[in-house]
C-alpha cells in the first residue's frame, strides 16, 4: 500500500481528520482558483479576438459557430452531455458521495469558453463550479478519502471556484453550503471557508484585487425600502419566467430529431440575430451590468424592458438549444435590468418622490433574481455585497432576497438547479429520509430464517416445523421448480392447530394466501416502506425470478435506518 495515497491513515490525521481536510482544502482551493482564472483569461482573449468582427453583417454566425463547436466538443471529444453542470454536481453529492469524472474538470471550461466567447448568452460561473467540484472530487479519489471527506472537497472546489471568479469568498462559501451541499455543518464549513479564501487569494494574486462592479454610495430612504417589496415580487415573477423559459425550451428542443451540434448552432444563430439589434444581450454581459449600476444606461424604460426580455430569450436559446454555460451571469444581467426598469417605472408613476438612484435598484434586482431562481437568499445577499464592495444596501438587499425566494417557492417549490432532480426523485439531501434509505441495500435487511414449505404438505407434517420456527410466516414453494406460490401465516393455521383429526386431511395449499404483495431485491427501500405503509404490513416477502429469497420487515429496516442515520450525522 502506497502510504502517500492514504493520508487519512497517517498518525497525524487518524483520529481527527479536520487538519487533513484543511490541508486538502488549500490544495483544492488553489486548483479551483487556477481553473477559474484560466476560464476568465480564455474568455477575455476570445472576446477580444472576436470583438473586431462584431459589427460585420455576418457576425450573427459567430454565436452559432461557437455553440456548435462547444456541442461537438462535449459530444464527440469528451463524451459529455451539454448543460451547465451544477445539477450534476448536486446529484453526485447527494447520491454518490461526490464522485465526479475527471474529464469534467476541464470539459465545461472549454465548451463554455467557446459558447460565451462567441457571443452566447450564458455565464462562466456554473462551468467553473463543475470544474472546481470535479477537481475536489478527483483529489479526494487520488488520496482515497471516504465519502464524507470527498463531499467536503467537492464543496471546497465549488467555493474556491466561485470565490475566485467573483473575487467573493463569502459568496463562494455560502453558495456551496446553501446550494451544493444543502447543509450547514461545522465539519464542512471550515475547510470550505479556507478553500474559498484560497481560491480568491489566487485570483487576487494573478488578476489583482478587482471588485467586479465598482461600488457607489447610495442614500436609501424609508420609501425605497418599502418599494423593495414590489421589486422583490417583480424579481420573483421574472425568476419564474426565466426558469420556465429555460426548462420549456430544453424540453421542446429535446424532441427535435436533429444532431446536437446543429441544434446548438440554430440556437446560437437566433442569439446572433438578436445581438444585431441588441448587442447588450450577447455574452456574459458584465459590461452592461456595470452601466446599469453606474447609471450609464441611458435608454428609456421601453428599451430597458426590451433588453430584459431579449436577454431571457437569448439565454433560453443559448442554453436550451445545447450551448454550454451557466445562468449566474444572465441572472445578474436580468436582475440589474429588472431593478433598473422598476426604478424608472416608479419614477414615472410618482415623479415627485425622491427615489434612490437606479443603480441601487439594479443591485437589488440582481440579488432578487439570484435568490429567486436559485432559491438561495443568502447567496444573493452576500454575492451582491461582495461584488459591489459595500454593505450599505444590506437592509433592502435582505428584504428583496428573502421576499423573492419565498415568493418563488410558492410557485416553483424547487429551484432551477434542483427541479429536474426533484421531479425524478433523485435529490437526496443530507439527513433526509430518502438519503438515509438510499444508503441501505435490500441485501443488508433480508431475513432468511423463514422455513419454506410445499403446498402438498399435510398439517401434521407442518406442526413440527411450526414448533422449531421463530417466525409466523412460511413461504410456500413449488416442490418441483422452487417457484414462490404464496405465504402461510400462523393466523391461517391457528383455527386447525387443536383439531388433530384434521392433521392428515388439510394440506397447506388449502390454507396459504396466494394473493401476496411482494417486493424485489433491487427495489428502492423508500418504495418498499411506502408499500408497507399503504398495505399496513409489517413485513413483505422478497421475490426474485419467481423465487423466494427472504423477508423484509419494518422493524429490521427501521433499526438499520437508525444506525445509518447515526453514521450519516456523525460529525467526525
Amino acid at each position: 500500500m502506497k502510504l502517500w495515497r492514504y493520508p487519512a491513515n497517517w498518525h497525524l490525521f487518524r483520529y481527527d481528520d479536520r487538519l487533513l481536510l484543511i490541508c486538502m482544502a488549500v490544495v483544492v482551493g488553489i486548483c479551483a482558483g487556477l481553473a477559474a482564472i484560466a476560464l476568465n483569461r480564455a474568455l477575455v482573449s476570445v472576446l477580444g479576438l472576436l470583438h473586431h468582427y462584431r459589427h460585420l453583417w455576418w457576425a450573427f454566425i459567430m454565436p452559432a459557430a461557437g455553440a456548435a463547436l462547444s456541442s461537438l466538443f462535449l459530444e464527440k471529444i469528451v463524451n459529455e452531455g451539454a448543460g451547465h453542470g451544477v445539477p450534476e454536481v448536486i446529484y453526485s453529492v447527494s447520491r454518490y458521495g461526490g464522485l465526479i469524472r475527471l474529464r469534467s474538470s476541464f470539459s465545461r471550461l472549454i465548451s463554455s469558453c467557446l459558447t460565451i466567447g462567441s457571443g452566447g448568452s450564458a455565464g462562466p460561473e456554473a462551468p467553473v463550479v463543475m470544474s472546481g467540484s470535479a477537481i475536489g472530487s478527483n483529489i479526494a479519489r487520488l488520496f482515497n478519502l471516504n465519502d464524507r471527506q470527498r463531499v467536503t472537497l467537492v464543496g471546497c472546489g465549488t467555493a474556491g471556484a466561485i470565490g475566485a471568479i467573483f473575487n467573493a469568498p463569502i459568496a463562494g462559501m455560502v453558495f456551496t453550503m446553501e446550494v451544493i451541499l444543502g447543509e450547514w455543518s461545522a465539519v464542512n464549513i471550515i475547510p470550505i471557508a479556507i478553500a474559498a479564501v484560497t481560491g480568491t487569494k489566487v485570483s487576487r494574486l494573478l488578476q489583482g484585487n478587482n471588485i467586479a462592479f465598482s461600488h457607489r454610495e447610495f442614500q436609501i430612504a424609508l420609501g425605497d425600502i418599502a418599494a423593495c417589496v414590489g421589486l422583490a415580487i417583480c424579481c420573483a415573477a421574472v425568476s419564474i419566467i426565466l426558469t420556465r423559459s429555460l426548462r420549456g425550451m430544453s424540453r421542446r428542443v429535446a424532441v427535435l430529431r436533429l444532431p446536437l451540434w446543429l441544434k446548438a448552432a440554430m440556437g446560437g444563430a437566433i442569439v446572433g440575430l438578436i445581438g444585431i439589434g441588441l448587442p447588450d444581450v450577447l455574452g456574459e454581459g458584465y459590461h452592461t451590468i456595470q452601466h446599469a449600476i453606474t447609471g450609464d444606461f441611458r435608454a428609456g424604460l421601453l428599451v430597458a424592458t426590451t433588453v430584459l426580455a431579449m436577454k431571457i430569450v437569448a439565454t433560453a436559446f443559448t442554453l436550451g438549444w445545447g450551448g454550454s454555460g451557466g445562468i449566474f451571469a444572465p441572472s445578474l444581467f436580468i436582475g440589474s435590468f429588472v431593478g433598473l426598469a422598476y426604478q424608472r417605472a416608479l419614477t414615472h408613476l410618482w415623479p415627485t418622490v425622491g427615489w434612490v438612484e437606479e443603480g441601487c435598484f439594479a443591485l437589488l434586482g440582481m440579488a432578487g433574481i439570484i435568490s429567486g431562481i436559485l432559491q438561495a437568499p443568502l447567496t444573493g445577499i452576500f454575492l451582491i455585497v461582495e461584488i459591489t464592495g459595500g454593505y450599505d444596501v444590506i437592509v433592502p438587499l435582505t428584504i428583496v432576497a428573502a421576499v423573492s425566494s419565498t415568493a418563488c417557492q410558492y410557485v416553483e417549490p424547487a429551484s432551477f438547479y434542483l427541479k429536474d432532480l426533484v421531479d425524478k426523485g433523485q435529490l437526496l439531501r443530507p439527513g433526509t429520509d430518502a438519503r438515509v434509505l438510499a444508503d441501505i441495500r435490500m441485501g443488508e435487511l433480508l431475513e432468511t430464517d423463514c422455513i419454506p414449505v410445499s403446498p402438498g404438505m399435510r398439517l401434521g407434517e407442518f406442526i413440527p416445523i411450526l414448533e422449531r420456527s421463530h417466525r409466523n410466516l412460511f413461504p410456500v414453494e413449488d416442490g418441483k421448480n422452487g417457484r414462490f406460490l404464496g405465504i402461510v401465516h400462523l393466523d391461517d393455521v391457528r383455527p386447525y392447530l387443536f383439531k388433530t383429526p384434521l392433521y392428515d386431511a388439510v394440506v397447506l395449499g388449502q390454507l396459504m394466501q396466494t394473493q401476496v404483495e411482494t417486493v424485489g431485491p433491487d427495489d428502492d427501500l423508500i418504495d418498499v416502506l411506502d408499500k408497507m405503509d399503504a398495505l399496513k404490513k409489517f413485513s413483505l416477502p422478497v421475490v426474485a425470478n419467481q423465487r423466494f429469497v427472504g423477508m423484509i420487515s419494518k422493524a429490521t429496516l427501521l433499526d438499520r435506518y437508525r444506525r445509518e442515520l447515526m453514521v450519516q450525522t456523525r460529525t467526525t
Partner: protein
Amino acid sequence: MTPKLFHIFRNTPLGRETLLQSLYFCRSIGCLPEIYIPESTRFLMYFENDVTQVDLDGSYLTAPSTSRGHAEALVLESGLKATYLTPKNYTAHGLPDIPTHYDYMCCPRSISDLSSKIGLGHIGPRVRRIVQAARFPVLITSPVFKAWNSITIFFGGSQNALNALRLGLRIARQSGKPLNMFTQIEKGDAETYRKAVADADLLSDWERYGAEWQFFEKGSLEENLYAVAHDALLVLGAYGHGLIKDIMFGSKMERIQSTLPNNLLIAGPKYTAVKG
C-alpha cells in the same frame, strides 16, 4: 441470494458469442444473468471510490428493435432466467447510472474500440478501469463462444494472486470442474509459492479441489503458456503493481491475455474475495 452476472448486450454476431459465453458461465456456476440492452453509447458506473464513464462503440446500438428479441432467444435456449436492467437513475440526460452491486460482470476485451474486437488485441481502457475499480471479478470472453471444461489459476504469489486463487476455488466448487494452477517461478522455488498458499490458509482447499499445479522455472512466460489447456477458464489477479511499473515492464495479465485466446476471469485489486 443467487449471484448475478451483469452483461451488456451487443446486438451483433460478436455480441451473440459474448452472451453465449456469459450464459454458459452462469449455467456452470449457478448464477443469474442480468442483461442491459443499452439505449445510448455511454453510461456511468459508480464504484466505491471511482466513477467510470463507459463509452460503448456504436455497434452496441445496432438494430435496437431486434435487440431484446435476440437476447431473449439466447437466454431461452440456455434454460436460464434472465432479468433485464432498466436504468433508474441518470447523472445527465442520456447518461444512465448502471448499478455496481453485481457478483460478476462480463466484458469483451474492449467495449469502446471496434478495431480490436476480433483479434486478441489489448484490454481497452474502460475495461481496465472497471477491473481496477470493481469489487466483482470481470469475465473477459474469448472472441468466439467456447465451453470451458477446466479452470486454470495463474498464481504468482502476490496478494492479488491469492484473491484469484480464492476466486478459482469458488468457481471450481460451484461448477464442479477440475482446477489447475500455473506458476511461472520468478523468485525462490516451488516451495516458496506453496508456503504463500499455506500462509493464506488455502492449502487444504487447494488439496481438496485442485488437480495439478504446474511450475515453470525455465523458458519465458509466453513459451510456457502453451501448456495451458485450450478449453480452460483462466482465473487471474490483475493490476497489483503501480501504473509506472506496468508501463515500464508490462503487466503480466496483459501478456497472458494477448497470448491465450481463452476466457478470462479477472479479479482486480478491489475484488473482495469470499473466503472459504
